[in-house]
């Protein structure tokens, strides 16, 4: 290999114009121990990239990840909770015909209704009687206006 050629290649290398084959030539040339002193730096760089290419991944990659398992578990958990809420059965809350006290006989029903309405009106009257005191409001304001 002529040194002149290497010189030219190095120039083009720094311009980023060399092909892979040409770079291979340079690599091969600088692999030799005896290169001219002014190319020591370039030799270092080529040695560096060669050395860097030797680094290997020590651990073997695993395809089955813990993350996958995690995702599936969480989906299962959510499903269980959702189904539990959906199908939750509480007998105490179930509507029962007997608990409502529905009366089937007509006359008894009429009596009961009357009784209930009477009770309502009674309480109404009781409440209304208390409203008499509201009149006092008018009395007092009247007096105040008179003083004026």
């Amino acid at each position, binding site marked *: 290999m002529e040194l002149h050629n290497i010189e030219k290649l190095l120039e083009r290398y720094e311009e*980023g114009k060399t092909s*892979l084959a040409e*770079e291979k030539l340079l690599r091969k040339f600088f692999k030799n121990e005896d290169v001219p002193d002014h190319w020591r730096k370039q030799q*270092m760089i080529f040695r*560096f990239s060669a050395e*860097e290419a030797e680094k290997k991944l020590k651990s073997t*990659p695993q395809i089955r990840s813990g993350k996958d398992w995690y995702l599936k578990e969480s989906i299962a958990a959510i499903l269980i909770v959702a189904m539990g809420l959906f199908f939750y059965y509480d007998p105490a809350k179930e509507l029962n015909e007997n608990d409502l006290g529905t009366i089937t006989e007509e006359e008894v029903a009429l009596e009961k209704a009357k009784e209930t309405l009477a009770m309502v009106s009674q309480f109404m009257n009781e409440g209304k009687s208390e409203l008499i005191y509201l009149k006092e409001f008018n009395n007092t304001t009247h007096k105040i206006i008179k003083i004026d």
Partner: protein
Amino acid sequence: MKEHTFLNIINPVRDKMYRMALRLLISKEAAEDATQEVILKLWNRKDRIKHYANIEAFAMKVTKNYCLDQLKSKQNSNLRIVHANYETTNISLQSEIEVNDELEWLGRIVATLPEQQKIIFQLRDVEQFEFEEIAEIMDMKPTAIRVALSRARKAIRENLIKKHNYGIT
């Protein structure tokens, strides 16, 4: 795609992916984790992988993007701290120590390059990808890649000379 076939495709690329992650993330542990994560990602997308013409370039692209995301995310901002990666190796010869020292300096010089140049240098000078492949990985035009590569190569040499002359970078 079966697990076996997938591993056969990934195994030749995984060291390249690891080296790319190592170049960007610096820490060995982070790089190993990143490689593992990216391989998982690829496995989850295994049905689409078949349709890619160049799986190697695609894997490198995913690795690159993943590592850049890692660097961007706040939780991993501590990854920027340069890890020493101490290892016990038996070095007996003085000259060997010097050489290793120089190579270490080169690693530091490369680490100071902008991310884009760093990645392109890694892809071209270390992994020896074709410009077309690098263009695919980087989503850049081949001419732009040549420019960035040229800048990276010049910067590395200039920094190495500077370091040699003054003992600093």
